[in-house]
């Protein structure tokens, strides 16, 4: 009898442990994506303001900082999200760097908008919402 109760408790604990680990991993991933994308978006906003005020040197420095930040985040992101999303962000960032170098305001701002959209889209993809579930 005691052995049976012990075995039931053991199975229940295993199930509970597995479910809680899966949900914890999910929450941690979601939290990590939220934090990193928020930080990237902040840097992009700073670059956008500088481009709008024609501060090209500052914009260039900021985009290079953003690039190195992205290179670090990218390594972890590639373990969590589809690599196509990462490639799109990297590609746009490279284009933005070139437009800032060429001091092309229109193209820089349009690529900033695209980049923002791609990055905002990432945590949205992993968010637990009815829209994502269905």
């Amino acid at each position, binding site marked *: 009898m005691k052995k049976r109760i012990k075995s*039931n408790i053991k199975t229940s604990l295993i199930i509970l442990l*597995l479910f809680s*680990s*899966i949900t914890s*991993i999910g929450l941690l991933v979601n939290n990590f994506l939220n934090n990193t994308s928020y930080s990237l978006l902040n840097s992009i906003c700073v670059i956008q303001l500088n481009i709008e005020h024609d501060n090209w040197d500052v914009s260039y420095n900021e985009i290079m900082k953003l690039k190195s930040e992205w290179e670090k985040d990218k390594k972890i992101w590639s*373990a969590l999200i*589809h*690599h196509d999303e990462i490639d799109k962000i990297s590609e746009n960032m490279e284009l933005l760097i070139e437009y800032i170098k060429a001091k092309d305001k229109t193209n820089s701002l349009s690529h900033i908008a695209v980049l923002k959209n791609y990055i905002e889209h990432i945590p949205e993809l992993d968010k637990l919402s009815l829209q994502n579930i269905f």
Partner: protein
Amino acid sequence: MVVFVRTIILYIFVTLAMRLMGKRQIGELQPFELVVALMLSELATLPMQDTAIPLIHGIIPILTLMTLEILISFLTLKVEFFRKLFCGTPDILIKHGKVSEEELRRQRFNLDDLIEELRMMGYLDIADIEYAILETSGKLSIIPKAEKSPATREDLNLNHQSVKLPVSIILDGVLNKKNLSITGHDLNWLMENLKSKGIEDIKDVFIAMIDSKGNLFIQRRDKDEEKNKK
């Protein structure tokens, strides 16, 4: 190369998952187990081939399915309601030599299939069958009428020896000391028996086991193999 490593990781992961799900998963499948088995294979192959998909997108669903499978198995074991819900109940298709039309229709089991199954199990006439039960795993169990069921040793009043569990002692030249002690014998006894068969070294034995009658069965290794091993 990436695909190679991913395949190894996913193979080990799926094998472990199947192992944790228990032995039933590989044998008779209940409906919910079949669903898990089908989904698992599909889930593992996608991230295996497509390197753009993170491995975690394959591992998390496999882990979730594994947990659900353990949970449902546990619930079906403990609670009858869940057992009926997930596994269903066996249905009697033939009762006292009469086919139940109602059950056949309900199970969408046609007469040809039923008769074929009966033939495959060695029963030619429906009238010989007391019960034919469609089990939850989809297999058909037949209980023949008493006068048509095969005679047993008990029916014929024949003496019978109880069957013992066969235990292997030496496999491919390697001695299993644990199994030897289970049989209640020691190494001296084994060596004496080997010597009586003209075998000096355990390495020369291909298989040695205590069979179901309690006798020692010894098969020597092929001569060529013996030379190679030495």
